[in-house]
């Protein structure tokens, strides 16, 4: 993991043992990630899992308590302006200045961002049928969300961060919002991080996944790779966990059989072929739900065991 950016483009996001403490409680701990440019990332977790904490540290709105995070190579407090220039953010509830008109909001965008694309902002308003002179508070929820999204897109950054962008919107507004996000990602290489706790909507949108529970990353990687590394096994009920290949993520027991989601490398999966056993691919939603349902204690224990089994790359000591 110690490779440099020399010769290749920097990853959209790199986090190294990132953590944030609020008083006695760790909102996020030991988060290490590397997300490539152009990925559309789903960040999933229950409320309070640390999604907003992680996002705000990525953007630069929050200081890490430990560890580091960089966006397209721009890290640390010293590069704050550079970091801010690379990320746009639509926060939960898409905050806007309610007394401003839409035109005022765009003027703010232009005043505060050198990379602002005013033409694009206005064009979007034309397409959506939102008159620029209207005050924000007179717009519907869906329209406000669209204005917020326009603010973010017109900033023309390579990374777009959306924090539960559609949770307060009706189904039609939801669809329109995500439609515009997907359309913006085509051809521009835009990297998008979408935080959500609605798993079902993410499958069609994301090609990269991060699952967060209890302030820790439980699963992270390209969706295809993650799906390929897991299997849904149907085994006879008496089968013990030790007999199962790889790591047991979730187990459901019936009278005579058990269904187990395991994470195992390809070799171990090939070794299957026992009588009465069946292995099926796992679906996106099943996979995510299984990880979300693991108790934090089990997850922590498994992660420590896995870390002990693998030599860990040297992490730089953080000096502040």
């Amino acid at each position, binding site marked *: 993991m110690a490779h440099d950016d020399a010769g290749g483009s920097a990853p959209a996001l790199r986090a190294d043992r990132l953590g944030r403490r609020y008083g006695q409680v760790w909102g996020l701990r030991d988060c290490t990630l590397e997300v490539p440019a*152009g990925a*559309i990332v789903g960040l999933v977790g229950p409320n309070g899992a640390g999604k907003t904490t992680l996002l705000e540290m990525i953007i630069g709105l929050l200081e890490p308590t430990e560890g580091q995070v960089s966006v397209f190579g721009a890290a640390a407090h010293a590069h704050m302006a550079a970091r801010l220039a690379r990320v746009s953010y639509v926060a939960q509830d898409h905050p806007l200045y309610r007394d401003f008109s839409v035109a005022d909001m765009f003027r703010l965008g232009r005043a505060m961002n050198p990379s602002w694309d005013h033409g694009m902002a206005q064009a979007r308003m034309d397409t959506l049928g939102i008159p620029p002179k209207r005050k924000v508070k007179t717009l519907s929820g869906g329209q406000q969300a669209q204005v917020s999204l326009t603010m973010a897109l017109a900033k023309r950054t390579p990374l777009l961060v959306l924090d539960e962008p559609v949770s307060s919107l009706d189904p039609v507004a939801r669809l329109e919002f995500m*439609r515009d996000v*997907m359309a913006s990602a085509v*051809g521009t290489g835009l990297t998008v991080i979408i935080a959500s706790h609605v798993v079902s909507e993410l499958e*069609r*949108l994301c*090609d990269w996944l991060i699952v967060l529970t209890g302030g820790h990353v439980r699963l992270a990687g390209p969706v295809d790779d993650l799906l390929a590394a897991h299997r849904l096994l149907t085994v006879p009920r008496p089968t013990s966990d030790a007999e199962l290949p790889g790591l047991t993520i979730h187990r459901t027991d019936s009278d005579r059989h058990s269904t187990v989601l395991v994470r195992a490398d390809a070799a171990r999966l*090939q070794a299957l072929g026992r009588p009465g056993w069946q292995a*099926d691919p796992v679906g996106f939603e099943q996979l995510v739900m299984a990880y979300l349902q693991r108790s934090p204690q089990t997850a922590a224990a498994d992660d420590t065991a896995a870390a002990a089994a693998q030599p860990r790359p040297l992490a730089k000591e953080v000096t502040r």
Partner: protein
Amino acid sequence: MFRFRLDASSGVPPYLQLVHQVRQSLLLGYLREGDRLPTVKDVASDLVINPNTVVKAYRQLEHEGLAGGRPGQGTFITASSFAVEPESNQALRASLEEWLRTAEEAGMSEEAVTALIAVARHDMRKEKV
């Protein structure tokens, strides 16, 4: 323009659904050789899905020899021979009908037939695990 649809609750990965729809449309004659498939942007917008999914589906179609990209112009259907020759189609159809009659005479209900097909397919897929 050819329009795809997405069944969010089918459990089938989106990119596969797109591939299946092209295959099926070819079979039914709704897509013919030379037809242009919609752009990645159009599909991603229309279905509200990740553009990479569309790219993956189109690559899979290329891999199977059903479609190909012409630089600057888009992705076009290249297969005419995928549409199985009408004669072979009819032959398959005939053997299927005969099998169904045999199953009915053996006392299998419709549900049992469907289940049997699913299990058989399953086992065949299992061999590729």
